[in-house]
């Protein structure tokens, strides 16, 4: 077995093994948490190694099983996948640290199941990231869906169960009804589901068929939360904060757009994306999603609901990039990373505030930042990054996304993004700013948690906020790394 194969196998097995160990030693909290953290760090190191190899052009690959003739469970790294894997694993490690603080502070039950499902979900993410064909990607996409369901329904009360049902219903429903048939049709048309540089379906499907397939996939990958399959996301906010942070800013939603980016680049290819009649309609829908979701976010007082709607809008940015295809995929890839880091910072912040004070409404947060300067400072940084202002990573992705939209002759998409930037300022900035400034009316809520914000949860916020800044300078290298995706430099 070559080094590359070993790397892939280790990346897949590490989270699974971790899940097993967590299950086995659940009682010993400290050991369990330490192992989770170590596993996250180890996974990030593995992913970094894969990223380096992929960057050198020596992409690791592995065929794990042949379920049906012509249909393999196969893995093959390419830049976007390597980036996604590294991003998710790094943020998992950070998020683990955060979870310890949060879950203990909130005295949540069933923590062993929580960490175990988290590890399983990471296995799903790794599978999606490294998948060498659509079939494998679908498998792990579903693994991710099912592994995260217990996390969404974690609290186990009626509301959580209802949210869990909606979550599973929409995600699994869309993938079964739409995504799976699309993949099978691709398989029938092309004889395989492999990701091929330049597009698998080139010369194998006409524009009309490609359009149908594209629509099936875009709505089938409901994790990307394009209207009208977005409804699961706001509902999933009943989950504990680390879940919202990791899954609904990083892993799950990004898996959705990641699928779209991959499909655009490696299944359809730029020409077929451009030639088929459905793309334009979907782009308009994405533009509508961007604007409407931002408008809805403005009306939400519940901070996690606001962030969830913001995520829906921001995901549609990346969906647009996937739909435009070609060079825009690079922008989409960068957007995937910068939004993940920015949004996880925001969710971290919201979680810490809730854990420390029990406040979850924006209107009750005035002046709270005086007592929690680090949290609100990081929240400000995350907000600026998500809005797309320098010196934070979000600026570059927004810039590139708008550039590509204009370049592709999609001015409406670009203008929707611009309008959404204004709107996102209006719904994000007041949270941090009013929080950091002295209260003007009633006094802010007191700490319900002795000692204030959980210490273990503050470090991760600082880390991700710093990452927002670092990404401003890393944007160039990331774009260069993703270069092969766009089919060469511009």
């Amino acid at each position: 077995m070559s080094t590359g194969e070993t790397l892939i196998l280790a990346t897949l097995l590490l989270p699974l093994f971790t899940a097993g160990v967590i299950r086995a030693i659940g009682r010993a909290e400290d050991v369990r948490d330490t192992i989770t953290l170590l596993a996250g760090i180890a996974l990030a190191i593995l992913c970094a190694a894969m990223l380096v190899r992929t960057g050198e052009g020596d992409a690791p690959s592995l065929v794990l099983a042949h379920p049906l003739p012509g249909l393999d469970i196969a893995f093959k790294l390419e830049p976007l996948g390597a980036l996604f894997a590294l991003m998710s694993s790094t943020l998992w490690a950070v998020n683990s640290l955060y979870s310890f603080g949060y879950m203990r502070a909130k005295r949540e039950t069933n923590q062993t199941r929580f960490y175990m499902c988290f590890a399983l979900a990471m296995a799903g993410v790794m599978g999606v990231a490294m998948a060498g064909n659509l079939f494998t990607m679908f498998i792990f996409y579903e693994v991710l869906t099912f592994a995260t369901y217990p996390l969404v329904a974690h609290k186990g009360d009626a509301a959580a169960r209802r949210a869990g049902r909606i979550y599973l219903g929409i995600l699994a429903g869309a993938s079964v009804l739409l995504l799976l048939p699309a993949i099978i049709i691709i398989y029938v048309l092309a004889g395989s589901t492999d990701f091929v540089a330049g597009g698998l379906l080139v010369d194998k499907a006409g524009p009309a068929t490609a359009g149908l397939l594209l629509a099936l996939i875009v709505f089938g990958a409901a994790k990307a939360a394009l209207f009208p399959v977005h409804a699961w996301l706001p509902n999933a906010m009943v989950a504990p904060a680390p879940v919202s942070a990791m899954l609904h800013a990083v892993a799950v939603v990004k898996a959705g757009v990641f699928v779209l980016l991959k499909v655009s680049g490696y299944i359809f290819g730029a020409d077929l994306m451009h030639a088929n009649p459905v793309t334009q309609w979907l782009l308009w829908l994405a533009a509508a999603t961007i604007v409407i979701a931002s408008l809805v976010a403005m009306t939400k007082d519940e901070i996690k609901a606001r962030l969830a709607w913001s995520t829906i809008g921001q995901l549609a940015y990346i969906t647009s990039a996937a739909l435009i295809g070609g060079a825009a995929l690079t922008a989409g890839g960068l957007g995937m990373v910068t939004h993940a880091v920015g949004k996880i910072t925001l969710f971290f912040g919201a979680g810490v505030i809730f854990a420390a004070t029990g406040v979850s409404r924006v209107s009750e947060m005035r002046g709270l930042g005086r007592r929690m300067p680090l949290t609100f400072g990081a929240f400000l940084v995350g907000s600026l990054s998500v809005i797309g202002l320098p010196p934070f990573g979000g600026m570059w992705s927004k810039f590139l996304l708008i550039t590509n939209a204009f370049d592709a002759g999609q001015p409406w998409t670009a203008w929707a993004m611009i309008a959404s930037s204004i709107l996102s300022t209006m719904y994000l900035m007041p949270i941090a700013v009013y929080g950091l400034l002295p209260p003007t009316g009633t006094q802010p809520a007191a700490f319900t948690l002795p000692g204030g914000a959980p210490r273990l949860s503050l470090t991760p916020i600082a880390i991700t906020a710093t990452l927002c800044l670092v990404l401003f300078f890393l944007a160039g290298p990331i774009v260069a790394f993703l270069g092969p995706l766009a089919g060469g430099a511009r």
Partner: protein
Amino acid sequence: MNAFIDFYAAPPGLTAHAAPLLVIGPLIAACAAALSPSTRSAWMISVGGTIFAFWMALCLAGEVARNGVVNYYMGGFAPPLGIAFRIDALGVMFALLISGIGVMAALFSGHTLEAEIMKGKRRLYQSGFLLCVAGLLGLSATGDAFNAFVFLEVSSIGTYALIGVGVDRRALPAAFNYLVMGTIGATFFVIGVGFLYAATGTLNMADMSGRLATLGDSRVVEAGFAFIVIGLGLKAAMFPLHGWLPAAYAYAPSLMGVFLSATATKAALYLMARFLFTVFGPHLDFVGLFLTWVMAPVAGAAAIICSAQAIFQTDIRRILAFSSVAQVGYIMLGVSMASAEGVSAGLFHLFNQALIKSALFMALGGLAFNIKATKLSDFSGVGRTAPWTMTAFAIGTFSLAGVPLTAGFLSKWRLIEAAFAAHWLWAVGVIAVSSLLGLIYAGRMLETIFFRAPVSEERAGEARFGVLVPLWILAAASVWYGLDASLPVDLSTAAAQALGLAPAGAAP
């Protein structure tokens, strides 16, 4: 069948007589079990008998892989005088399936009969079970239409009795209904065979097929066809003739649930496929019409309506029973495409379904000691108190719902693939919608079992080890074939070929 080509499971002398031994073995075991001194020895005989049958099925598989078809004439008398066994790839597939599931059911029976069957009747129960096994195996091995009827009735009569014997009072009316409907079906079938005999003058299916080809448009043949497919449809629980099934499966002793759900309707399906493709052949207009205008719509309706019904059931076994009818719909949908891809996909699904359903009933039956009731709500939180049993149950449920990495996923994949290749886009939609409904009832069961609080504290305990072994074998098989389905795909493809359906070549 390539997997079996170099497969020599027994000395040549035994292999030569494997076909009759496949049936006779369990028959002898049935007698022995009835006469055996104790429940325990009856159980051991039962296990031995089924293992022997499985062994013989493996021998036959090797022979079929090498020679294509195994013909065996009892006492050397060729048909039409003698009793002929004719086993091809399709027959072998069913023989393997029935005997394999038989072994699992027999293993399982050792620990559950005490809970469900009155003390004195346990040996006879084992005997009846073996009789069923023998009947079904005979059905898969025979080459004679009338013998097929005989074997069908042997197994059926055993089944009627075995369903009714349990401690659950509701099983009696269920068994009676099954008896009535089953007998109507059998009668229709034998009437149909009679018509065919009148038209062709033979009962040997191969001969029948040859002569039908020369007959042309014959009212008698057409009438016979109608009676045969409806009769077998009744036995196979073809929608809307499935009314007998849910109660029969739900209230029967769990051994019967385990065994019947995997085999009984499947055997009828086998016979139907045999008649549709071998005896009549899809080239006949009325067969084509039947497949397109009766079987396909009825199958689609079953897949959706019965899945929807399953969602609303409160009794966990009735959920599984309705699911079975829906799965029969899938299989028939595949068969009705009358293409190599479709039929092999249907058979592949049938194979998986057999594994899954027996595993699921086994898991429920294994808890029969602990949980007397069968309401879904009674299983609240069982996932925490009996994790091993219920994890296997969960795997089965995943496979049932077609979750990736399980065998059920791959067979649904194949079905959709075949439907698209046949340009049946509506069937793609039906399978997708029905899969979604399947996810819902599967999710409902799992949510109750794993995420609700247990009803009471003292309800604890796993199924016994003897139950867990076959249960986990089946669950593991579901996962294994989800990762590498070459064996069932091989079997079903060869079976479809044996039915005279050549792959279209367009298949990847």
